């Protein structure tokens, strides 16, 4: 299946092409979302739509890195108002054979796959969605 491959720092991630609507350059400034969790960078106006931008790094509990985050990966139309802030987008590649990811099970992560000899973490669109919602829902 074809995946959009992008990076957070040096680590590579993939999302099924069908789950990605487009990739855009982030705006100069975001509108801050009051009382939002820290992972929410803010909202942006994308051609009249208000898109919530989430820092993927924080969503996946990755450490802060030195590289600026300079692409927003917009999810498909079901989640059309959600964008993931990432370091950069590499392109579209076919990803086959996804195996279980090492470490803690996260709903946002489907597994890992090999791509050009290197590993890529394959994300689960539904899981990402759920992870974002979970940020907003105080744990009971």
């Amino acid at each position: 299946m074809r995946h959009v491959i992008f990076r957070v720092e040096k680590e590579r991630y993939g999302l099924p092409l069908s789950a990605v609507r487009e990739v855009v350059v982030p705006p100069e400034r975001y509108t801050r979302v009051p009382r939002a969790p820290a992972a929410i960078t803010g909202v942006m106006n994308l051609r009249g739509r208000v898109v919530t931008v989430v820092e993927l790094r924080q969503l996946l509990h990755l450490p802060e890195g030195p590289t600026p985050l300079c692409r927003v990966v917009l999810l498909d139309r079901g989640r059309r108002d959600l964008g993931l802030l990432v370091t950069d987008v590499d392109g579209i590649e076919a990803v086959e054979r996804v195996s279980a990811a090492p470490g803690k099970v996260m709903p946002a992560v489907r597994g890992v796959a090999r791509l050009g000899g290197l590993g890529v973490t394959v994300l689960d669109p539904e899981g990402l969605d759920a992870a974002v919602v979970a940020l907003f829902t105080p744990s009971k």
Partner: protein
Amino acid sequence: MTMDMSRYLGLFISEATEHLEALGRDLVALEREATASTVDSMFRHAHSVKGMASSMGFEPIAMLAHRVEDLVDAVRQDRKLLDRDLVDLLLNAADTLTAQVRAVASSREPEQAAGLLQQLGARVEALTGHAPAATRVAQVTALKPATPSGDDGEGSGGGEGPSGASGSGSPGGAAGPASGSGSASGSGSPGGAASASGAGASGSAAPASGAGPSGGDTGVGASGATVPSALAVMPPATLMPPRDLSGPDALYGAPSARTLAVMPESDPSSPVAALTSGLKAVTSVADGKSGAPRWSVRLRISPTCQVPGVRAFLVHKRLSTLGTLVDLRPPLEELKAGRIPDGYIQVDVETGVGDTGIQAALRNVAEVEVVSVSPSVPEPPALPVVAPTSDAARATADTGSRTVRVRTELLDYFLDTVGELMLATARLREVGKVLPENTRPALEEGVYRLHTLVKDLHDKVMSARMTPLSLITDRLPRAARDLARRKEREVELVITGAEIELDRAILDELADPLLHLLRNCIDHGLESPDERMAAKKSPRGRVTVTVRRARDRVIIDIEDDGRGMDPAKLKASALKRGLITEDAAQRMADRDAFLLSCLPGVSTAKDITDISGRGVGMDAVKRVVESVGGTLEIDSVRGQGTTFTLRLPLTVAVVHLLLVEVGEEVFGLPIAKVVGATEADPQALSKSRETALLPHGNGLLPVHALESLLGVPAAPKPGYRPFVVMEGDAGTGKVALAVDRLLGQEEVVLKPLSRPLDLLPGLSGVTILGSGRPVFILDVPRLLTA
């Protein structure tokens, strides 16, 4: 040439889904009252789904829908057959069909619902006294797009995607196509192919027969006209007369007019050429009564014809317009039932139109070949042939109004784009203001024109987005039924005015709140049947959903006749949670007290219900309603019931905002809730328990710094700052918000908050300013309580 069905898939999915939803609704309605029109409507829905599914080659769906259709048809004959189990079974079938369609939507093969099919079949049998007709099952299997009449050898080779997996078995298929013996029709096909070339050869003599394409090409595509056209001649070998006519009696029968026809097989080798050119005069006795000449006509229904009975009936009808029909074999009843041995039909026609007239009358009937027309009297007068298809008058108007289905995303896109056009226009106008005086008029004129066009486009887009409320209320009866059954309650749901239209965006938002309110009514509003009886009410509860238009608003009332709400209890609960003060509780009107149920945790119903995996409480209902620019009111009379009133804008709301700035952020406050603005030095304000108090009117208002309320970083500024006095709600009362700057008023288009923003308390919507900046609209009371 097989059709590419994949392009209809989307339409199939959406339309089949609609039919199934409607079927579900009908079923629920049916249980309440089995009206003929509901049953008819159910029949239509099942029938449509069957037709579409069989067209798509989705055999499991087609079969199930067909069984439902059968069962509904049985109910149609006698509505007393209907009982709750039957409705359950049909609902189950509707759900399964929906699941099957969903499977197809996600490119999976729909699963065969064998158990359900069997159950339905058993019911059909029990109700009608006979099993679902074998032919009907055959029909579904035989109707796979690429499969020609039961000959699975060719069919499975067709490579038609969706049908492939449904197997080449088609058990009933072999029996399907011809009512007669399968072998006869099987052998007929090759013979037919041979005869087609014969027709070509004799084409000059029979101009009407034309060339290949006329044949109902049900064979393999490559062979072209395998079925002879009207005037083709069957080769002698296939010209076997039907048994019942081959006896000497038929040939040389008694001198009664009825049996004097001369059989064509007396000259089996006579080609059409001979028939149509100089017809051999065959002696016969004219019928005394009608002076018209008598013709003996012999026809054959194409072996590939799926419904030979109807075909034969059509032929009969055509011939009977020519004159009197005598000695029809098989007799009409047999014909209609499709019992036509080998497809041969024999009849005498007393008519003045001659053989050409007879040929002409049948020329335009598909799947029929005229084997022979022989005169019973010599030289029938040749009358002009009337072409059955006269030129219908040409229409003056070439275009009818056409409708297309537009995906909602596209509608959203239109709206977004038009919104952006409006923004861009506003931008241009702004830019125009700084231009030199002399260049301005031209630009302003252009901008004005642009503005008018965009406004017009906006109106059109808005009207295209208007959708009847039934889109969401249609789900309610089923939900009500399920809820009532679970709670073991009797509920009657009456929905009126669902045809009223609202903007699609608002409608989408309202689906869950409406469902929640309904659930609220059934779960908490309505009493148990015993309680109701004790209160001298009908044991069956009643929930009405009334939709009406009032100027530019749509008002939805959801009303139950249950126990009603207790304002005292609500107040006590809110008090206990510290959401209101004792004093406020005392002064609070009942109407406001009812609204306390919309504060989180106050609802007298302990449980927050969960709809579609999403916790939606009364607070969420209120928030959603307000986020689309509407209001929620609650009225209740103890012991008599509760009414929830939703007042909604027709279209995406335009709201007046007061824009305020704190730190670097801009927020919108709904003008409708702004009482006033003032300036004061926060340091100079008196305090009570850490809360600053602003003198206002005769009293003091609690002051909240917006930056801390929202968690926005803002450098503290000494001295005077503006305060905005806001209307509170039932729980909070008026408050004063300290801001950094008042930016002024603006009229904006309110956008509902999409996931995940809708999960944040205190925001009622978002809008995009002329500068392109998104700005949140605050729900101050919620900000204070959440």
